[in-house]
């Protein structure tokens, strides 16, 4: 949070490499943890808890996309499709084989990772816009396949109902239980990503993003590592898909259309490419945005618009604001909300001195 490093000297490499080398940093994290784990569940009503549930799921998905796009520099417009692969894989395993969540969640992730690797194969040859188109194609192909294969999608409605996850014999039925369940996955995803990007594989991803020729010359097998990035990213997506399925109690392909892929792109761009904290900010921001717009429109919309068209305006308004925000961040602050946060923090770190 807001603190200075002066007066602390790191005497071991281990200490220097810790997430939060300073006691005050660790205390800040502990405080945030306390708020989210104890205070919030006790005092928030179920409606707000359900928003936090959605944010937790989005955090997992956004981290996955950020590993691919922000850290490795490979674009994907098919993130939601990988989520759907996880969702339907798990839904089938849960309903047909009665698998518990601790098997269903990783299975959904693994299946999504496998599909992700397939989609990632062209990334050896094609970059940028061409890769974007290839992953866009994957989005539509996966959608189509799921929709047209009753064995996967469960028939006419292309949806499969699933029971709530059972943890230690207890079904996660209330919002509080679901909140803890989903939050646990978000925390695991955050920690795993922070670990990844501070060690060998994550560093190699960044090297590929920054200088793929130099990356190869220092001994990184660029193709293999791009596939790793696709696999890990899709694994996260698959897990997020399973979590969303548990949350909704149904797997439905309409929850994983191209617009959802765009939502996730917006999360990592607005939150901050190549930043774990940015992924979290982005997930919070993009999840809250439509809710805030709706509240705003419910309260003030009637002043500006005819009630007949209000609902339509609200829906369009969201898209327009979305586009404007993405453009704003791409042009003005490519490092996203994370950069804004760092600027604020640095301001206070040296306060009251300006240099």
């Amino acid at each position, binding site marked *: 949070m807001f603190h200075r490093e002066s007066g602390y000297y790191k005497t071991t*490499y*281990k200490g220097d*490499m810790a997430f939060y080398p300073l006691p005050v940093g660790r205390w800040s994290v502990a405080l945030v943890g306390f708020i989210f784990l104890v205070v919030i569940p006790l005092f928030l009503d179920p409606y707000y808890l359900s928003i936090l549930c959605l944010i937790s799921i989005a955090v997992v998905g956004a981290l996955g996309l950020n590993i691919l796009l922000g850290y490795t520099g490979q674009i994907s417009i098919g993130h939601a499709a990988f989520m759907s692969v996880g969702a339907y894989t798990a839904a089938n395993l849960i309903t047909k084989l009665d698998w518990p969540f601790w098997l269903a969640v990783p299975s959904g992730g693994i299946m999504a990772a496998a599909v992700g690797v397939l989609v990632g194969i062209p990334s050896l040859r094609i970059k940028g816009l061409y890769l974007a188109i290839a992953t866009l194609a994957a989005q539509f192909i996966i959608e189509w396949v799921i929709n047209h294969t009753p064995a996967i999608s469960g028939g006419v409605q292309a949806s499969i109902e699933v029971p709530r996850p059972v943890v230690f014999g207890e079904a996660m039925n209330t919002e509080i239980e679901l909140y803890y369940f989903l939050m646990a996955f978000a925390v695991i995803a955050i920690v*795993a990503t922070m*670990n*990844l990007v*501070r*060690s*060998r*594989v*994550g*560093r*190699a991803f*960044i*090297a590929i993003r*920054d*200088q793929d*020729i*130099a*990356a*190869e*010359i*220092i*001994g*990184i*097998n*660029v193709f293999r590592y791009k596939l*790793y990035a696709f*696999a*890990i990213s899709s694994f996260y997506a698959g897990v997020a898909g399973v979590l969303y399925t548990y949350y909704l109690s149904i797997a439905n392909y309409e929850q994983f259309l191209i617009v959802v892929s765009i939502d996730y792109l917006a999360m990592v761009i607005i939150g901050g490419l190549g930043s774990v904290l940015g992924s979290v900010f982005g997930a919070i921001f993009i999840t809250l945005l439509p809710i805030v717009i709706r509240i705003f429109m419910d309260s003030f919309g009637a002043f500006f618009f005819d009630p007949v068209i209000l609902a339509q305006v609200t829906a369009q308004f969201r898209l327009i604001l979305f586009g404007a925000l993405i453009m704003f961040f791409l042009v003005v602050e490519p490092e996203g909300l994370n950069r804004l946060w760092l600027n604020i923090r640095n301001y206070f770190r040296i306060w009251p001195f300006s240099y």
Partner: protein
Amino acid sequence: MPDSTLGEADGGPTLSVEGVSKNFGGVRAVASVSTAVTKGEIFAIIGPNGAGKTTLLNMVSGFYKPDEGAILFRDRDIGRLKPNEIAELGIARTFQNIALFRGLTVLDNLMLGRHVRLKSGVFASLLYWGPAQREEILHRRRCEEIIDFLKLSDLRKTPAGALAYGLQKRVELGRALASDPTLLLLDEPMAGMNQEEKEDMVRYVLDVSAEWGTTIVLIEHDMGVVMDISDRVAVLDMGEKIAEGTPDQVRADPKVIQAYLGTAH
């Protein structure tokens, strides 16, 4: 001078290039060049602009495949290997145009240079605590040694892209050294430096050679530097090797004088 037909085990060449050619469209960038670099020596490649020096280095590091000829590293043909496979065998290089990971710190650049010496895979990296952390600490130690050696201690947490040009060149040397290479290829490590920076770099190159016995191939335009530090020199002109020998031999060679007449060097 050891007999260059012997293998490395017998004190033969660390690197040998045999009749190597490379064409770009109509341009014959390298034309059947043969040479051998002995273990532990500092071997310079000189020649006018466009002579084919960088192209030759690019073939050794696997960036280009030779159209003809063979490249042997410690008796093994590496002409068809990919750059990352060649790096794993113990060849590291720097670039004529700096190619650092600009957004990463000096330390991370060096840790990346050491990539081939680390083992952690995806799962170990995601878990971190345990093998990956032990490995990070172990290799961090070696990178810190190199950082000390290159006097970069104060800059270890500075993004490489924020450094002055001369320091970036030094970090690039550090990144190459971080893999503990057997063979180090330096493409114009002193280009664009002021006199003081050049002297520092010369010192580092000599120290690397003396302390770790690293075999060094170096492309350089500054004749003073080349003549001072090289054990042997090869001269390229228009893709062909026109001379090879000790600095004194090369300096006296009429063909070399001819090639350099009228050029800016």
